[in-house]
């Protein structure tokens, strides 16, 4: 009887520290965040009155918010799609590579190991209009120098390019792991049925990878929504406000203007967007039922 009880409570005991940590460091901060989003909250002011939905009303009536939402949507969708396409391509190529696979793999992982601030600074220098190495190549190809980061049209693509450079290897490594886990049998069957390489890729590889693809896309999407360090180092939300994303808006209002209440409201809206997106994706693709069990 005692053993049975222990057996039943065992998993809960093992999970307890994790749940306590989650409550302490995630749930409590979230509830606090939610609370202050209804307050006029400045860390240096003793008076922190409740203002109801004022912060949210202000948020939805400000063009900054809609601009930041648009920029975030463009940034997240472009960078994640590009990273996925390139990452998948690289993973397929690497998977078929015989000699030097590990070497290439390790070399390609270097960008992930770098801090986003370092990457941001590095690209800021490389994209400098006057002495940046990028313009050196542009000029040697006969084109004129370009203001990559101070041109309102080019700044966001430059930021997306930087993100793609850093995070494509992350996508690649997850997809490569997925590719390595696909058994040989479906490929043998496809070969016997006379499927072409493209048909095999579309009808065998992609379905087998679908859950891994979903997880990779989810993780990158969440991460892309949070981009801040790179923006700080490269553009600081400018020129004008062409690279001002929602997470930059949180920083601007929260830490630059000390409007914690308003910044918290932006956080809550950002969270709702991400969670809605996740729920939608998870409903469509069941990532937990590995092996196709229903």
């Amino acid at each position, binding site marked *: 009887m005692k053993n049975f009880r222990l057996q039943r409570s065992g998993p809960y005991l093992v999970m307890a520290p994790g749940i306590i940590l989650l409550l302490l460091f995630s749930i409590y901060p979230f509830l606090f965040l939610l609370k202050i989003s209804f307050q006029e909250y400045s860390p240096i002011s003793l008076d922190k009155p409740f203002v109801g939905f004022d912060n949210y009303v202000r948020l939805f009536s400000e063009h900054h918010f809609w601009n930041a939402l648009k920029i975030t949507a463009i940034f997240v969708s472009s960078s994640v799609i590009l990273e996925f396409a390139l990452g998948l391509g690289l993973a397929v190529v690497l998977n078929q590579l015989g000699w030097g696979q590990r070497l290439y793999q390790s070399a390609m992982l270097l960008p992930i190991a770098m801090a986003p601030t370092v990457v941001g600074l590095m690209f800021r220098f490389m994209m400098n*209009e006057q002495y940046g190495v990028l313009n050196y190549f542009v000029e040697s190809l006969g084109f004129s120098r370009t203001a990559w980061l101070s041109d309102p049209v080019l700044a966001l693509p430059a930021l997306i390019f930087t993100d793609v450079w850093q995070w494509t290897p992350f996508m690649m490594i997850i997809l490569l792991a997925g590719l390595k886990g696909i058994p040989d049998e479906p490929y043998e069957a496809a070969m016997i049925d006379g499927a072409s390489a493209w048909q095999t890729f579309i009808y065998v590889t992609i379905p087998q990878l679908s859950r891994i693809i979903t997880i990779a896309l989810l993780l990158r999407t969440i991460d892309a929504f949070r981009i801040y360090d790179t923006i700080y180092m490269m553009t600081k939300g400018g020129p004008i406000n062409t690279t001002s994303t929602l997470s930059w808006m949180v920083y601007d209002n929260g830490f630059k203007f000390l409007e914690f209440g308003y910044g918290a409201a932006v956080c809550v809206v950002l969270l709702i967007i991400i969670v809605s997106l996740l729920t939608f994706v998870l409903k469509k693709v069941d990532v937990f039922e590995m092996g196709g069990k229903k």
Partner: protein
Amino acid sequence: MRKRLTRMSFLLLLCGLLFLSACSSNSSNQPANEGDSNTGTGSETTGSGEQVTLNGVFLGATWGQATQELAKEYEQETGVKVNIELVGRDVIYQKLALSIAGQANYDLFNVDYNWIPEFASTGSLLQLDDLIKEHNIDTSKYLPRALALTQWNGQNGSFGEGGPIYGLPQTIHPHLLWYRSDLFADETIKAEFKAKYGYDLVPPQTMDQFRDAAEFFNGKEYNGEKLYGWAAQATKGFGNVHTWLTFLYSNGADVIDWNNMTSSLSTPEAIEATQTWVDLLQYSPPGINDYTFAEVASDASQGKLAMALHWSWSAFEVDDPATSKTVGKWDFAQTPAMKESVPHLAGWSIVIPTTSKQQEEAFKFMTWLESKENDLRQAQMGGGDPVREESYADPALTDMLIEGTDVKRFRRYEALEEAMKITKARPFFPQEEKWESTVSEYLSAAQFKQMSVEEAMKQADEAVNKMLQR
């Protein structure tokens, strides 16, 4: 059911991770060696006989580095240990706010003066008047406009009107006109200029002269180096606002109608000044709209500019033989006048947060650092420009030469002293930081021609008024 639970747990975990990472940044608000801190009693040791330790946060600029060095001497002299953290501007602001909110153990902050009304209005900064009186500190020795940066009488737009003192100035740097004296003295160039414009080439005193000189030099080759007419910081954030203010003030405009507390950015004077500045950007290097003070100083030292509107303090960079191609070639004058010359004043002060547990010890260090001797020494060590009037006439500085040359190291002081009589600070009111950010965005739109200057100023007015009403 089980599937739904698993899905919910996964979502919860992801949200948790998201917020954990969001909350983890800026969490290191405590001093590096908090364990050293004690509750002070106004002497070198605490009641329990332990050594007094002060914790300060300073800008990672030359004057912050000088402070760090001098703090070591202070410890030798007094036994009081002063830990100085050097960080960036944004980080100081955040640390100050969060340390006040979290009662962190910081005693001194190096602040950009525009934060003083904001933090003073919430009672977060220590008023120093009683301590000044008690310790017989003669504040009349400070440059009046430098001291005024630390005062706030609770009224909006009250720069220079006195009021309680919340800090001591550490360094000031008004805008000066920088010009290449070798170019302006070159006989061939002078003749060429006169032939084109019909008057002698002199360091510009008016904006028209400045425009002519900028146009004349822009694109010219001199000793194999392509020149640009002029440069000044123009990046969004605060760079463009700081340069633009010099134009605006010199055209007799102000940014806010202080009697009615409404924005006054679309007055004819403000629009004219803004248009003049935007038009002049065509004579600046490519990428000027992304220039911070670092790029201006770098271009100046590499011989790419004929003129600059730049901080006085930054002049050390063009006189550094190790990195500059233009050592001793720059000279300094008053910023050109539209109606009159009114340079924008920048400066950094030292304040004590009310949360400091060692306020008197912090005050003693602050006054020691800004004493006559150390005001000079900071300048000699390459720190900021002095804040005491007497320092500007002291031969220890005025006769000092750049090593290995016969060029006076502080030749800018004459112009600087003059500028300190006419310079004007950024608007003095608690929402200044937000105001700057708001205006910066519209200036940026005008710089990039996304809006006409008139439209940008009109929209900036609306945005500022909206902000002021909140």
